[in-house]
Each structure stands twice: as structure tokens, then as C-alpha cells.
């Protein structure tokens, strides 16, 4: 097939452009490490992507350009539209979805390669790829496919399409059997160098099923770990397929994302004081019910009007948002309340736990959307020393991340998890929808403390009442 340029010129141009792409990606990610330059960072990386995509049309020996343009228009168009309209509170599932698409694309690249091997005659198949390349293609296919189906399940759960966590006895054994069977099939593909069509299809089917069965039992509060893990998976899958296609841009970008995603996954798991294996292979909350004793005192409700007065006359208020704030879409009202307090001379800070919400940094995005300046937002390490000096800790829809048993009760499933020390504040106000326990099913001792008052109701409604009360307090 005749390209626009002579083959060697086109190849050189593409390789140089990929060098530029890799450079721009690095610059972009680097710029994202500060809130001041972050926005420039994504634009820089975007320019890199555009250059890479346009130059890739010049590959020698390519056809199907009409199909290609149509596919880009469909995929890009739908993603553009969905990305523009999605609410900030729904961001975790959109990121899971786009991530799954990347994993699926990597798997599709591998599928084309493996099917070509299957359909070619044995000699030609062996000549096409050595065992190393086949092994890389197969590994990438495995990881990418798991990331694809796993991310789609994560999307379904976060979107509320899948409401239950499916668990049954022996689930881990079933998962391990599927892993074993998939790896065995993968190995047979690599060794035979000329797999049958059935083997390849079965291999992909099993990998798809594995992603589903791995993700279904994982609960909502573990989603930050899962999303960052699948992000790393997709990155690695892209890198592996980059080897197969001898595409340096894919290798570099994939590995950078894989390593960054691995680090982020570790950070998230550490913030829950759990190992990655524990998140993936054990249902949270098992055996937690037994640890519910030892609660002394009672839940003491308070009217929003009194709570408002308490805050209006405080010197320092620390706000601790959690997933409940996101569900109630209360971030705008909460900031309105805080602005009122600030105008009254109250010092207001926001304390964010690393795993609050459903993805890393979920709360920060919501607060930013409401207009909260990022210098008012503090993370766990910065803020924990300040609770001693706070008059009010306002907990909005957060639960396990402020439960003091994580510090004290060795028998508790969340023992050792770093928490926000809300209990050290002079007064604790908890906005909560009902009286139930948190995601983990563990009783929260914070709610029973002498200096804690509960404000029951939807976070948005309560915030509105608090605003009213603060205004009335003059």
C-alpha cells in the first residue's frame, strides 16, 4: 500500500514524533504535580496525544482509513459528550469507564495479533513473532482484558447499576482456578506459537470473566484502591502491546502510568492499613459484627439551629467531608456555610482523608467544584495536630475515617488505619442520614463520645439549616 511519504521517511518522522510525544507526556505529568501548573500540564499532554495520533496515520502499509476515522469519530465523540456532561460527583465511575476502554483497546491489539497467528499456517506464524513477543502480547492481553471487564464492573457499581456485592463461600478458590486456567491457556499459546482459534477465544473469555469475578465482591469504600489498580493495569497492558508493535511512545507512556498507578494503589491501600491482596480477596467487614461491643454512652442528637450557633461562636472549625457529602451533592451548601463562618471571623479548614469518597482525591475535586480554595484544604498529616485547637469538628457523611477504634481497639478490622482525629476537637458535630453503621459495619465510637452531637438528615438539607442558623446568630 502506498502511503503519503516514502516508507523510510514516514517511519523516521513517526519515530521522531513519538519522541516528542513521550517528552510532552513527561512535561505534562510533571506540571500536574502542583496545583498552580496542573492545568497547563494536561494541555501539554493533550498536544502530545494529538501529534502522536496525527502522525500515526503515516504508518507505511496501512489501509482501512475510512474505518479508522469513523471509529475515532464514534469513540472520541461519545467520550467527549459524556465527559462534558458528567457531574463531578460521578467522576469516579467515568474515570473507571475510560480506563476500561483503554484496557479493552490494548486487549484488541493483542487479539488481532494472536488471531493472525492462529489463522496463519504454522511456518508463517512462527516467522511472524518470536516467543518473546508472543509472550508479551499474551501478557498484555491478559492484563488489558481483566482491566477492561473489571473497570466496567467498577463503573456499574459506582453508577448504582450493580447494587450488591456478590460473595459466596469459596469465591477466592474459584477466582484462583480461573487465574490458573487463563495463565495455562496463555502459556500454551506462547509455547505452541500456532494456537488454535478456540484456544485464543477461550483465553479472552476467561480473562473477561476473571475481571468480573474479581471486582464483583469488592465494596464501595474499597473503590479508590480498585480504580488506581486498574489504571496501573491498563498502563502495563499498553506498554506490553507497545513492545509487540515496536511503538516507543506506547512503551514509555504505559510504563510511566503503570509505575505511577502502582504507587498510588500502594498509597491508597496504606491509607486503609490493608494490603492489596486483602482488598482484592477478602470481603471487608467479615467478623466485624463481633467487635461492636464496648460502646458506652448514647447517641445525642442536636437541632441544626443549636449546631449553627455553636459554629457561629467558634474560633476554629475543621470540616471533614466524606462520601455522604458527595451522595447528597452538598458541597456547594457546605462551602456557602463555611464562607458565612469565615466572614464572621471563624477559622475554617477542610480535612481530607486519603480514601474519603470513591477514588483518590474525590473530596478535593468536589470541594474545588464548589469553589473552595485549595489552600484551605489539608490532608491527614497536616491537619491531625490541629484538632486539639479546634472548637468544632464538623463531620459530613464520613464514618470509618474518623472512628477512634482504629487507634485503640486491636480487635477491630480497621485497627491501625490512619484516621482523622476528630475526637480530639472540643466539640464534634456529625451530620448523618440515619443511625446505621458505616460501610464496614463497625460501630463508630466517635458518635458516642460526650462531646459529640448528631445532626440527622440529608447533608444538603442540614447544611441549608445550618446556614440559616448561622445567619440568625447574627
Amino acid at each position: 500500500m502506498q502511503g503519503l511519504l516514502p516508507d523510510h521517511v514516514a517511519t523516521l518522522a513517526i519515530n521522531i514524533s513519538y519522541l516528542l510525544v513521550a517528552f510532552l507526556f513527561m512535561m505534562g505529568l510533571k506540571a500536574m504535580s502542583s496545583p498552580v501548573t496542573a492545568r497547563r500540564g494536561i494541555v501539554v499532554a493533550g498536544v502530545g496525544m494529538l501529534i502522536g495520533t496525527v502522525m500515526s496515520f503515516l504508518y507505511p502499509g496501512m489501509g482501512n482509513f475510512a474505518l479508522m476515522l469513523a471509529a475515532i469519530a464514534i469513540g472520541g465523540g461519545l467520550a467527549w459528550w459524556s465527559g462534558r456532561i458528567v457531574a463531578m460527583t460521578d467522576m469516579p465511575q467515568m474515570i473507571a469507564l475510560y480506563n476500561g476502554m483503554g484496557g479493552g483497546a490494548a486487549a484488541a491489539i493483542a487479539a488481532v495479533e494472536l488471531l493472525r497467528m492462529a489463522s496463519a499456517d504454522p511456518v508463517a506464524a512462527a516467522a511472524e513473532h518470536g516467543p518473546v513477543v508472543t509472550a508479551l502480547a499474551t501478557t498484555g492481553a491478559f492484563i488489558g482484558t481483566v482491566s477492561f471487564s473489571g473497570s466496567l464492573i467498577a463503573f456499574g457499581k459506582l453508577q448504582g447499576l450493580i447494587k450488591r456485592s456478590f460473595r459466596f463461600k469459596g469465591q477466592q478458590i474459584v477466582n484462583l482456578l480461573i487465574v490458573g486456567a487463563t495463565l495455562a491457556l496463555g502459556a500454551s499459546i506462547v509455547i505452541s506459537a500456532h494456537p488454535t482459534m478456540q484456544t485464543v477465544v477461550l483465553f479472552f473469555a476467561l480473562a473477561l470473566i476473571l475481571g468480573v469475578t474479581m471486582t464483583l465482591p469488592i465494596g464501595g469504600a474499597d473503590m479508590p484502591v480498585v480504580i488506581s489498580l486498574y489504571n496501573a493495569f491498563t498502563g502495563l497492558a499498553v506498554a506490553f502491546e507497545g513492545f509487540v508493535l515496536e511503538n516507543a511512545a506506547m512503551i514509555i507512556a504505559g510504563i510511566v502510568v503503570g509505575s505511577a498507578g502502582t504507587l498510588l494503589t500502594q498509597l491508597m491501600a496504606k491509607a486503609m492499613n490493608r494490603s492489596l491482596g486483602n482488598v482484592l480477596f477478602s470481603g471487608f467487614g467479615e467478623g466485624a459484627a463481633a467487635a461492636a461491643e464496648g460502646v458506652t454512652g448514647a447517641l445525642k442528637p442536636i437541632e441544626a439551629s443549636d449546631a449553627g450557633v455553636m459554629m457561629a461562636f467558634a474560633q476554629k472549625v475543621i470540616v471533614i467531608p466524606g462520601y455522604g457529602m458527595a451522595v447528597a451533592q452538598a458541597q456547594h451548601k457546605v462551602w456557602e456555610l463555611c464562607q458565612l463562618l469565615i466572614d464572621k471571623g471563624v477559622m475554617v479548614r477542610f480535612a481530607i482523608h486519603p480514601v474519603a469518597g470513591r477514588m483518590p482525591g474525590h473530596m478535593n475535586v468536589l470541594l474545588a467544584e464548589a469553589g473552595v480554595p485549595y489552600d484551605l484544604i489539608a490532608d491527614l498529616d497536616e491537619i491531625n495536630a490541629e484538632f486539639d485547637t479546634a472548637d468544632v469538628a464538623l463531620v459530613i457523611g464520613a464514618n470509618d475515617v474518623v472512628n477512634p477504634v482504629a487507634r485503640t481497639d486491636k480487635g477491630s478490622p480497621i485497627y491501625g488505619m490512619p484516621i482523622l482525629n476528630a475526637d480530639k476537637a472540643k466539640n464534634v458535630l456529625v451530620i448523618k442520614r440515619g443511625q446505621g453503621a458505616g460501610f464496614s459495619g463497625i460501630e463508630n465510637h466517635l458518635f458516642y463520645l460526650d462531646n459529640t452531637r448528631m445532626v440527622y438528615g440529608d447533608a444538603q438539607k442540614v447544611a441549608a439549616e445550618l446556614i440559616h442558623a448561622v445567619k440568625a446568630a447574627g
Partner: protein
Amino acid sequence: MEGVIALYIVMLAAFTGYEIIARVPVILHTPLMSGSNFVHGIVLVGAMVALGRADTVLEQVIGFIGVVLGAGNAVGGYVVTERMLQMFKASGQKNQKKKEPA
């Protein structure tokens, strides 16, 4: 590509990725994750090659799906990251969403 050279690339890229994210403040974890989610959208160019070289109908179908997914990853990842990052503002900066204090 030479196998050993490719390994060099992998090692250097892995360290780079680690170093870049290790210094990112916690408040930027979401945009960073979503930014790296965008970056692996480069899989689009691989999918384009797979589709461009497809001969049989089956290969074309799979390649087509691959390009749709890859384009979705790249474009979607860009749009949401950009939307999130443009919301981050410091105290001094003007924010059009700021409500009038009563």
C-alpha cells in the same frame, strides 16, 4: 526494536513515573490519576496500526472496536481531567462559582 534497548526504556520510564507521582500533593491525586488515565490513551495509536494492517473481516471488526475504545480513553480522559483541573483555585484567585455572601 532491540530487546535490551527496550528494557532500558522500561527501566527509565518506571523510575520517571515513580518520581513524578511521588511528589504530587494529595489534593491532586484525582486529576493525576485521571491524567495518567489520559496518558495511556496513547493506546489509540496502537489500535490504529492494528486496524490499519487488518486484512480479514474479523481483524477489521476487532481493530475497529480497539480504535473506538482507544479514542474513547484518550478523549474522555482529556475532557474530565481538564474539567477537574480548571476548578482548582487558590484563595486569592477569582472564582466565577463563588456565591455572594449575604
